[in-house]
């Protein structure tokens, strides 16, 4: 059995994630222990909370470098919502804050002036492949047109490089990046653990990624 660790950094809906893995017979370990996180086959950085509270939680537990090291080694990682936003370089929720800087870019607020819908976006919305990227072999494979996912957020990814944009979503008439990817590091703005069957497919694919042999 491959080991999957859900990183507990003080904020987050850990139970919903744990049970999504349990649905596939995987007992994910919830941990704030750097050693446990280092040796896991895959980790999830979950997310409910503000950018600043999230980084503070990681820092207090001495986990910033642990997570960055895993990313450098291209070990499978799934950031969700806030956990995905933290993968970027900077966030602007309640002031400017440094992120993990694993994927270059920023986390910025939806531009209210240009939106025809309310902010936060709360609800179900479709995720499309960004530009001409293919989802084949990725954790989004097999979702295709059925990838309607649950979002709840006011801030969005603004990755610096187009190559890190993996999925996009349209809200209020504007397209934004809803999935970022760099190798085996994924970040989803939506909550797969809360997105019914479509989200569960993503979780299942992530378990496969964790189990795949790596160099």
């Amino acid at each position, binding site marked *: 059995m491959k080991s999957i660790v859900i990183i507990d950094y003080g904020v987050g809906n850990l139970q919903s994630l744990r*049970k999504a893995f349990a649905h596939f017979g995987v007992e994910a370990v919830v941990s704030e222990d750097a050693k446990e996180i280092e040796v896991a086959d895959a980790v999830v950085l979950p997310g409910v909370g*503000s950018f600043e509270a999230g980084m503070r939680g990681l820092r207090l537990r001495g986990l910033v470098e642990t997570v960055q090291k895993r990313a450098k080694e291209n070990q499978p990682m799934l950031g969700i919502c806030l956990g995905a936003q933290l993968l970027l370089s900077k966030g602007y929720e309640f002031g400017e804050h440094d992120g993990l800087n694993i994927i270059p870019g920023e986390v910025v607020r939806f531009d209210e002036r240009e939106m025809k819908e309310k902010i936060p976006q*709360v*609800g179900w919305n479709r995720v499309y492949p960004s530009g001409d990227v293919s989802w084949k072999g990725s954790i989004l494979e097999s979702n295709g047109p059925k990838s309607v996912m649950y979002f709840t957020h006011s801030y969005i990814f603004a990755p610096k490089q187009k190559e890190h944009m993996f999925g996009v979503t349209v*809200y209020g008439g504007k397209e934004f990046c809803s999935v970022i990817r760099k190798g085996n590091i994924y970040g989803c703005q939506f909550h797969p653990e809360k997105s019914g069957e479509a989200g*569960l497919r993503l979780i299942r694919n992530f378990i496969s990624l964790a189990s795949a042999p790596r160099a």
Partner: protein
Amino acid sequence: MKNIRIIPTLHIKGSNVVKPVHTEALRVVGHPKELALRYYREGADELIYLDIVASLYQRNFDFELLKSVSEEIFIPITVGGGIRSLSDIKNALRVGADKVAINTYAVHHPEFLKAAAEEFGSQCIVLYIEAKEKGDGRWEVYTDGGRESTGVDAVEWAKRTIDLGVGEILLTSIDRDGTRKGYDLELTSAIASTSPIPVIAHGGAGNAAHLEEIIKKGKADAVGVSSIFHYAETDIGAVKKNLSGREINVRANYSN
């Protein structure tokens, strides 16, 4: 247009789901776990789970029950009833809640909403309003399960809490709750049409036409529904199909 969320609401008393009329609990309608699972499978977009006595008797929230209810549910769950500290919120999130709905404690300690939003993010904090009509286009906020009047104006209160950082408003009309006569259109519209954050209309749904009205005219971003689902008069798939025919976008259910 965005997808409108259809949200079955479970009112919990002890270990049962009950159906309140005018927020007073009348009948036991089923077991929380069974109903939650049924609604999930039928294509509910979220669930609302309200312990209707936790606040009233200063009782602690039953976190174990919530944990067992949420076990096989993979959609968002908003939990309310007796939430009065940051650790209550943390505990609720740890047993499967995604958001918390706060009424009574917030009315007495508005600054709590700000602290909660800063710690958990606005998207996690739902303002729960139970309002009663006072005439002349005014509605008063009630607390403690609809029993205590507060003198607080519902529309003013909503505006104030948005500035404090709440991310969503769950708006119950005490007058319509359990009547199946339709939502309170004026109340919902007064708050939803000016609110920059989503408003979930609740209380009074009796048929699909009521939902259409509160979405199109009331500007509700989501609708809470209980009686018509609890008594299996219709199911969520049928309601969504009906709404699609009325040119309202809803998430199709792909799980079946």
